[in-house]
């Protein structure tokens, strides 16, 4: 009797685990059914390596957006990951309890602010600042809506994910590691950075992956502040369009091949993310074997 329950539940668990596979398969089907024929029509090389995007003339090249996505995400990682991990360490191991009572809800709140709000904040505060300070005072030019602004914004937006996942995994590290290090005469900082944090590596990595996922997939905020010019990225302080922005911006009015080309953009994005994840898990497997 009990055994039946155990077995049934085991399969229930298994089914749940397969939910994400099912979701991906369904999304895949939908994307591929609409996107792949379009790619075929446009020509895979013209599509992936084309430097021009002119839907009005049926020219669909998404290389600028692929590069744009890579640059902006890299920028977000450069800005968001170090700050996020360090803040997670602060919250888990440095924060006085009184401050923590304020910090914790604050970070959770940061996670709950909708992208649109971030977008308006960026538009009204960040863009003018970048335009006036970097663009005009330092002479980099540009109207403020740029790759740099988008990177900063995304860097901020991935903070709460990295911080909360990182913090809880640092907290989960047994205290005996920390005590052991202190007893060897290590300072608090050394114990934390060279004993506790490495032990929380997998959790921190999970946070980063979730964060990068958010950075790649984020749109609402990015389209407000990135400029969105459909051309090859021209510089840090010039506008840029990402794959996701391209989809969101034009989906509203796109029809026929134009629409399918946008869905094909999503296919590319999808494959892109899949590749990154496969790469990650490969690296991780290497790491555990070696």
């Amino acid at each position, binding site marked *: 009797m009990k055994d039946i329950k155990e077995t049934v539940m085991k399969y229930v668990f298994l089914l749940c685990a397969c939910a994400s596979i099912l979701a991906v398969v369904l999304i895949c089907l939908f994307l591929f059914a609409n996107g792949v024929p379009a790619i075929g029509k446009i020509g895979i090389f013209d599509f992936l390596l084309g430097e021009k995007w*002119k*839907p*009005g*003339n049926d020219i669909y090249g998404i290389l600028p957006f692929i590069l744009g996505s890579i640059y902006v995400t890299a920028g977000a990682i450069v800005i968001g990951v170090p700050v996020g991990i360090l803040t997670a360490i602060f919250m888990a191991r440095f924060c006085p309890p009184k401050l923590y009572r304020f910090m914790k809800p604050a970070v959770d709140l940061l996670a709950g602010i909708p992208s649109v709000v971030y*977008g*308006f904040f960026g*538009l*009204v505060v960040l*863009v*003018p600042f970048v*335009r006036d300070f970097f663009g005009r005072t330092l002479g980099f*030019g540009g*109207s*403020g*809506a740029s790759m740099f602004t988008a990177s900063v914004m995304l860097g901020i937006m991935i903070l709460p994910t990295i911080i909360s996942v990182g913090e809880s995994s640092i907290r989960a590290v047994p205290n005996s590691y920390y005590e052991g290090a202190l007893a060897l005469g290590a300072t608090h900082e050394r114990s934390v950075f060279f004993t506790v944090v490495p032990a929380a590596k997998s959790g921190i990595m999970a946070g980063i992956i979730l964060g990068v996922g958010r950075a790649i997939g984020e749109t609402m905020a990015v*389209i*407000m502040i990135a*400029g*969105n*010019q*459909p*051309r090859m990225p021209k510089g840090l302080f010039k*506008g840029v*369009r990402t794959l996701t922005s391209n989809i*969101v*911006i*034009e*989906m*509203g*009015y*796109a*029809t*026929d091949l*134009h*629409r399918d080309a946008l869905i094909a953009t999503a296919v590319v994005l999808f494959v892109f993310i899949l590749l990154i994840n496969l790469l990650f898990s490969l690296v991780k497997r290497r790491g555990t074997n070696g």
Partner: protein
Amino acid sequence: ACGSNGESTSDAGSDSGSDKEASAEAPTGEISVISREDGSGTRGAFIELFGIEEKDDSGEKIDNTTEDAQVTNNTSVMMTSVAGDPQAIGYISLGSLDKSVKALKVDGAEATAENVKNDTYKISRPFNIATTDKVSEAAQDFIDYILSAEGQKIVEDNGYIAAAADAAAYAGSKPSGKIVVAGSSSVTPVMEKLKEGYEAVNPDAEIEIQQSDSTTGMESAISGVCDIGMASRELKDSETEAGLKGQEIALDGIAVIVNNENAMTDITSDQVKEIYTGEVTDWEDLQ
């Protein structure tokens, strides 16, 4: 857009109505060109009417908008960007215009509904609704209302231009039922007013408005998810082939806007074309 204008700038505007001209300066420096996204009704009308779109030798239409133009798909982002950048220029629907930005006269004509109606201001786009052949009784009655004198008055009261100049008064059967209207976010504000107007005369009707975008509106109408689709552009061939019938319910003027600090008040259509094709990139070079 954004409240920066809504709140702070509109205040500034009201208490400094007179010294507005004084604080405004002749623009200098690089022009920040802001455009709408490819395919949007606003952009379509804009590039066509200013000659930014040209036919090439083979007769195909080429959109010559400069690649350096910032692109947005959102009216309020456009307004906020222009309101925040003294060197910016952009264009928006007349219905959305407020004091946070300044609409330029084009070839001497002021951007008002009046001028669009009497054809002195040429830049406008249509608001369309679309249905399949199978229109429910309730939906048809609502459409009748929209196209009636009452409905068209609501359109005009909200800053748009009536599509049917002298429509007959509404004399519908006021059937009960649920009507789902879906599509363009540009059409939605006026559709909400129409809904409220209609529900006042026909309390039995239940109207649901789904705001998304023109294409989604058309698709929803085709697939039957909604009864009436809204589009702020002309219907595409593929859509009419799928059985949709379009109906113009209003016209919307398009205003060329600049920052309030910009001293310019007038612009010619050639200048607009030069700016948007990238021939002129600096305010000082503008003739």
